[in-house]
């Protein structure tokens, strides 16, 4: 039995108000109403009265961790996180982009988030499949127990079963659609590089214009740059205006990293992301 969205909203507003009133945080990252109820906006509450504008409903999918790096280091921030978002916060702490001590993590256990384009329930097919945040200071609802644990990698089975010609045909077709709008990059909390490799001129890694050259370079390199860091929030897929299932490739890379290196991204602040680390006894078999 999950806490209702209305109750979570109430708890979130109350906590935000209290934290801002007491001055424990300078800002609270949450959501507010957009042009209608199905289209919430990310929202930064800066004073206690701003807390009145906070909402939370099943369409609040934006991963707020992406806004953490916008604020100067040392800013005290409270952030509302769903399970995958909490993992993003963990990775940012691991990578020293934010200090644990500067954050108050308001965890939200979720069941039943919905994609506003399709009204489909968001589950382990397009996100990490967790119900409870992995790290938080204040839990805004009842911890969810008893729900089925579905592997976030089950959705990959039909693609893994394809032979390489089918898979190439699939990805070629999907990546051809890319219009290089970079919504995926900006929606991702882990894509904070300034400048991003694809914007460089010396060297020019990929063509600027959409096409088989630049598109493939951009996406394959991005899949690599997120290896061991992608926390499977699925926002890249939801942000894409042409519905490219980028999350599938990121999931595959995450699955391989888990199998090869024994850890999933963003689960504990004491760990390091997989590619920033090594073990002497990593098996050479991973290169086969």
């Amino acid at each position: 039995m999950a806490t209702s969205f209305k109750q979570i909203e109430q708890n979130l507003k109350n906590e935000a108000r209290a934290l801002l009133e007491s001055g424990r945080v300078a800002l609270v990252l949450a959501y507010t109403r957009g042009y209608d109820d199905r289209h919430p906006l990310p929202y930064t509450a800066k004073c206690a009265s701003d807390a009145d504008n906070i909402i939370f409903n099943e369409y609040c999918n934006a991963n707020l961790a992406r806004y953490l790096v916008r604020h100067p280091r040392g800013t005290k921030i409270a952030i509302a996180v769903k399970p995958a978002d909490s993992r993003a916060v963990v990775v940012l702490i691991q990578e020293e982009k934010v200090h644990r001590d500067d954050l108050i993590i308001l965890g939200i256990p979720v069941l039943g988030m919905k994609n506003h384009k399709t009204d489909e329930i968001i589950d382990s097919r397009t996100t990490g499949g967790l119900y409870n945040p992995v790290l938080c200071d204040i839990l805004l609802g009842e911890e969810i127990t008893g729900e089925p644990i579905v592997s976030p990698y089950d959705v990959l089975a039909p693609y893994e079963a394809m032979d390489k010609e089918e898979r190439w045909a699939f990805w070629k077709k999907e990546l051809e659609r890319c219009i290089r709008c970079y919504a995926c990059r900006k929606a991702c909390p882990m894509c904070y590089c300034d400048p991003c490799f694809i914007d460089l001129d010396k060297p020019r890694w990929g063509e600027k214009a959409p096409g088989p050259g630049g598109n493939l370079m951009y996406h394959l390199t991005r899949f690599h740059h997120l290896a061991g860091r992608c926390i499977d929030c699925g926002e890249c897929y939801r942000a894409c205006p042409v519905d490219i299932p980028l999350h599938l490739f990121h999931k595959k890379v995450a699955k391989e990293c888990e199998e090869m290196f024994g850890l999933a991204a963003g689960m504990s602040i004491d760990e390091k992301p997989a590619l920033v680390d090594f073990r002497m006894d990593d098996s050479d078999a991973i290169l086969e």
Partner: protein
Amino acid sequence: MSFEPKILGIACNWCTYTGADLAGTTRLQYPQNTRVVRVMCSSRINPSFIFRAFQLGADGVLVGGCHPGDCHYNTGNLYARRRLAVVKKILEFSGMEPGRFRVEWISASEGNKFAEVVREFTQQIRELGPQTKFKITN
């Protein structure tokens, strides 16, 4: 005219490149299809090199580095091992033929191994045929 593969070789300065030199000075014969680029350490290799090499028409990419534990810079190849393993998985999942990218640990004294690996890999690429999936055709 039979297909002559174009293979990009990336060799670390301290081990593999020296091993390749040794193959040369001991007059070992191996196919000429591999163009070797020298890097100071296998961990200098940016994964984008490999993706871009295939886009620019490489039929195969061969990376050589020091044996884990023997890196001239102590830990470089240990990071490279993980990084290049991920490159392999990405190539595989995208549908590229897995045999086109290979990583070998070849030390400075293993001139024989260098020649053998190049012979084997060239033959493998010859059998796989020209790489057309990633290659940009303007």
